[in-house]
């Protein structure tokens, strides 16, 4: 289903640091969740077109007209850290 190595990899992709105990715990829990969903595979869907959405609607578009958002300050304020008009983020490590 899912092994610890995959959990480790996904955690890495999501920039999460898991302790060995957490890795173990999530391997079991994610395995259970995936196992539950695995029931869906009992159905034969070989004749069914893949569905990416539940609602059958296409070509939803809008006109190219500018409308500035008025509460920019709230967005800046909602960040954990800002510096003037910038968002401030911790030191970025280049990919190892």
């Amino acid at each position, binding site marked *: 289903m899912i092994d610890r190595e995959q959990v480790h*990899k996904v955690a890495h*992709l*999501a*920039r999460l640091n898991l302790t060995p105990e957490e890795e173990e715990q999530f391997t079991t829990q994610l395995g259970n969740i995936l196992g539950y969903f695995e029931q869906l595979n009992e159905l034969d869907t070989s004749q069914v077109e893949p569905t*990416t*959405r539940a*609602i059958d*609607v*296409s*070509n*939803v*578009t*809008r*006109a*190219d*007209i*500018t*409308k*500035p*958002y008025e509460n*920019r300050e709230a*967005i*800046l304020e909602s960040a954990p850290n800002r*510096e*003037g*008009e*910038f*968002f*401030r*983020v*911790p*030191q*970025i490590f*280049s*990919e*190892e």
Partner: protein
Amino acid sequence: MTTAAPVKTQYEAVIGLETHVQLKTATKIFCNCSTEFDTPPNQNVCPICTGMPGVLPVLNRTVLEYAVKAGLALQCQIAAYSKFDRKQYFYPDLPKNYQISQYDLPIAEHGWLEIEIPDSDGKPMRKRIGITRLHMEEDAGKLVHAGSDRLSGSTYSLVDFNRTGVPLAEIVSEPDMRSGREAAEYAQELRRILRYLGVSDGNMQEGSLRCDVNISVRPVGQSEFGTKVEIKNMNSFNAIQRAIEYEIERQTEALESGDRIIQETRLWEEGAQRTISMRVKEGSSDYRYFPEPDLGPIEVTAEQLKQWQSELPELPAQKRRHYEDELGLSAYDARVITDDRAIAEYFEATLAAKANPKLAANWIMGDISAYLNENRVSITEIALQPTALAELVQLIEANTISNKIAKDILPELLTKGGSAKELVEKKGLIQISDTSVIEAAIDAVMAAHPDELQKYRGGKTKLLGFFVGQVMKQTSGRADPKLTNQLLAQKLNG
């Protein structure tokens, strides 16, 4: 029987380009924020482009139109069913931790464009470069690394999301190019097409056109590709060409000395004119694409497609052929005139007013272009109308004015406009083709310069130019130069 000397292995490069172009819309791809360049940090942001929970992105219909038009102009098949996907990666320039892009069902695929490179005789060599795909996506934000101008050494970074959500088209070519020259030409032709369509301004300095190069080298005759290297960070067509030439040499030397090429991303260093390794581990990217649940699929109707197709202008390659084959322009002239759509249209309007194509082209490429460059204006901003240029060309062709007079009055026509014919009449600049009038002027000149006349007759025939100049001065430049030369030669020798 002769014994063949050991032949040195010949290598060839295999080159493909990945180009990101900014689509020239007023608003971002999925929200109503402005795409304006150079505004204060985080001026053009909203909950959608900053990825707040619960927001709903909606596709800008002009982005779709521009992407489809670009796809059509690149001879692509437009997808009957297309969708957006989430590309997951974690970097602070991306507020949502995913980029909305298109993965397996891009809006356009399987196209081509034609490049034209003049050979040493000036004859055009044409080559088709395949377009693998074109898809729509959003741009990321901009990072400013504090405490250092480089990422390494900075203690923290500042993020500006103004660019986040700016619409891009990513255009991927087939690995059909074999030299830096071909790649640079491909990139230029691509930009020319996009500018003709008016869907992008293609400004490389401002980052609205960015090219990444994929390049490998292999022995000629080998069908498998060599190990591919990606080059980034070139901000001119010239840099694309030189980065590729550098890389071909580097890879060929490595192969010749038995080294292995490492699959990696390299950066072009403009100052040092070389590529350097970014030392990024390849093959580790795992974007976990999945369909974007917030955006519905796109099904361009046949009717809509027909409408957009009908709005496409004549494209540069078509114009080049038309100018060469039907108007008799040289490949070089056709390339220069068609480089910019506004100039090509100006040229065509001049022809519509019945100007000789070659003469009109010469004026546009010569004095008019010089004026445009000097004053940093576009051809649509000058007062000289195509009809007036046609008049000017006709006046020269009919021998009513000399080329010299035409050059003299051009500045006034460029800045004040009006009719060339009326200006010539008003200023009394009509060429003198009356033999007796020119002869009278010659006689006067000869009488005024007896010393020069003596020297000329003594064998110093180079003085002919002096006499021509004097006759022109005498007639305010209006004497027919050809006739003046003829008559002078007769009189001086007589």
